[in-house]
């Protein structure tokens, strides 16, 4: 009896831990009777499909492709970094036409698997294949999907600076802030663009920046937020994933404003989140799948930016005045036309 109970406890553990790693089942789109279905596999990063950001956006791109293009897609979640190579290999062996890896942490895993399967196409979001020595080695079968985060940061920076300058609503201290998870390039590019916009639009506005040293821990984000708010910040831009949700919560508790990142985070705290800097991972995934379908797949660096709808800004809250919103729309157009080139290095550290 005891043994049976002990066993069922163990079994329950295994079932529960596997449940969260279960793969989505491939579903045929079946909408078009002609042509051959392409097989597409998506491997997420350790954040999981419900990270409300990167992985969930990539998955949206996959689902959109499944609905609109003649493709059969499936997705596998990585629970730890050691899963990257087996997950990518599984899809390559399954004769997928395109295997997509989410996140720059997969750079080495993509290199390992793509060199073994030269006939399979790969794409990696936010990274490029990197060999064991840490050197970038572009491969003829790998597309590197990069984003101009500084452009998205610039656009939301225009909104923040306009509101700070005109002292709109709770933004009375003419001070705007940002918080990154870690000082790594994709994070710092957002912050660089944000600061560049503030310096351009409203040179007198004070700028602060900090790092939570974490992409998961909400309490760390809240502490940085409280510290920034105590120093007069009333517009807080988060670039720290789950930890950044804490930064938004700090703004909400203090009755000041926040700006979301990557995905549209308006629903996280309505009335607090004035807009979001969008990195359209869904667009990048969809476009890349479509490029395989059309035979226009391009190995090496692919840039997603203002010119190809790769970046943008999210829902704008009602508190944002029309002139700030118009300025952001204008900035997006000016970046797309090349009139403005946002900086990509952080000025206020």
């Amino acid at each position, binding site marked *: 009896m005891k043994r049976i109970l002990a066993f069922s406890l163990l079994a329950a553990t295994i079932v529960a831990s596997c449940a969260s790693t279960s793969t989505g089942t491939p579903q045929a789109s079946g909408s078009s009777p002609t042509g051959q279905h392409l097989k597409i596999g998506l491997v997420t990063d350790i954040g*999981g499909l419900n990270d409300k950001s990167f992985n969930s956006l990539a998955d949206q791109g996959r689902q959109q492709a499944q609905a609109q293009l003649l493709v059969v897609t499936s997705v596998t979640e990585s629970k730890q970094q050691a899963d990257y190579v087996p997950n990518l290999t599984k899809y390559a062996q399954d004769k997928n036409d395109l295997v997509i890896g989410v996140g720059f942490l997969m750079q080495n895993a993509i290199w390992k698997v793509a060199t073994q399967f030269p006939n399979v196409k790969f794409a990696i979001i936010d990274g490029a294949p990197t060999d064991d020595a840490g050197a970038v080695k572009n491969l003829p079968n790998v597309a590197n999907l990069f984003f101009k985060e500084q452009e998205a940061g610039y656009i939301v920076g225009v909104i923040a600076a306009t509101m700070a300058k005109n002292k709109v609503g709770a933004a009375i201290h003419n001070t705007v802030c940002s918080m990154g998870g870690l000082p790594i390039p994709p994070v710092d590019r957002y912050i660089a663009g944000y600061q560049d916009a503030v310096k351009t639009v409203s040179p007198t506005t004070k700028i602060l920046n900090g790092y939570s040293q974490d992409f998961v821990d909400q309490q760390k984000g809240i502490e940085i937020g409280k510290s920034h708010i105590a120093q007069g910040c009333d517009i807080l831009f988060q670039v720290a994933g789950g930890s950044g949700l804490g930064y938004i919560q700090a703004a909400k508790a203090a009755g000041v404003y926040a700006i979301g990142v990557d995905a549209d985070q308006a629903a996280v705290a309505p009335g607090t989140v004035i807009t979001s800097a969008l990195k359209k991972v869904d667009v990048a995934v969809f476009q890349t799948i479509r490029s395989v379908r059309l035979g226009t797949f391009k190995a090496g660096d692919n840039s997603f930016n203002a010119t190809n709808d790769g970046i943008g800004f999210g829902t704008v809250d009602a508190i944002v005045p029309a002139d700030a919103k118009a300025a952001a729309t204008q900035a997006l157009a000016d970046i797309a036309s090349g009139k403005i080139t946002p900086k990509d290095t952080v000025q206020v550290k």
Partner: protein
Amino acid sequence: MTWEMLVGASVLAATLRLATPIALAALGGTMSERSGVVNIALEGSMLVGCFFGVVVADRSHNIWLALAAALLAGLLLAALHAYASITLRADQIVSGMALNILALGLTTYLDYEMYGTTGTPSDLVAVPDLHLTFLNGIPYVGTAIGDQNWIVWVGLLLVAALQVFLFRTVLGLRWRAVGEHPRAAETVGVNVRRMRYAAVLASGALAALGGAYLSLGVAHSFTDGMTGGRGFIGLAAMIFGRWTPVGALGASLIFGYGNALSTSLQGATVGGVRLPVQLLGTLPYILTILAVAGFVGRSRAPAADGLPYETEGHA
């Protein structure tokens, strides 16, 4: 760098906020190990406390029900550990680790099933802060403790109460006897199994209160794995605090202070050189090593800690 950045009132306030979840986990660990059961499933109890507190807050809009659900969830996870380690006499580390994985898998899975990619609702009922308005005029103190969450104060009360309980009451003496020499305790009529069950269940509920603090008191939401290892840091604080509630609180405050400094010192310069944020991130750990090496000396675990107990004559 200024004194304000090192010992300012806001740094002390942050220290208390950051120490509270660690201290509650450490308190749970202390209660369990004092009875002779190692419970490394504290992290898991904390996480299910975070999650089920939020779920019931969302469904019932009643903070008391939400808190009760959080404690019950932590307690139930601990009950599995108690059954495995006391009744089945399984390896306590293996059982604890399995339950941590269970808690992470279960909460991640249910979070996705229930809240999908949109996240938990933004209008959750929450545990409020306690605004001590009479402290407002007092410099330093008002900022440091005037706006702490209710659970911070409950945690401090629990530390005092459990310190008295363990070391000043008969039941506390029996509790500790079971952890030091269960056979001797049993010969004088103490029910070792019942005592250990009570201890493990209490530890799960205490850790879950720490979890409820994070999700219902601080973040007002749930995100996957949001405890971020605080249950394990709590175990370190327990050892560092020499298996006493007051010691555990002291150790947690040091961890909390290190974390608070890594926020307050951002942007600080020493002799014109900026302190790198990566270095500041290591502060909590450096402080811990210094404290353990310099001040604590050797700490001794309860003699029967982690050893399954077999009743005499029971083969």
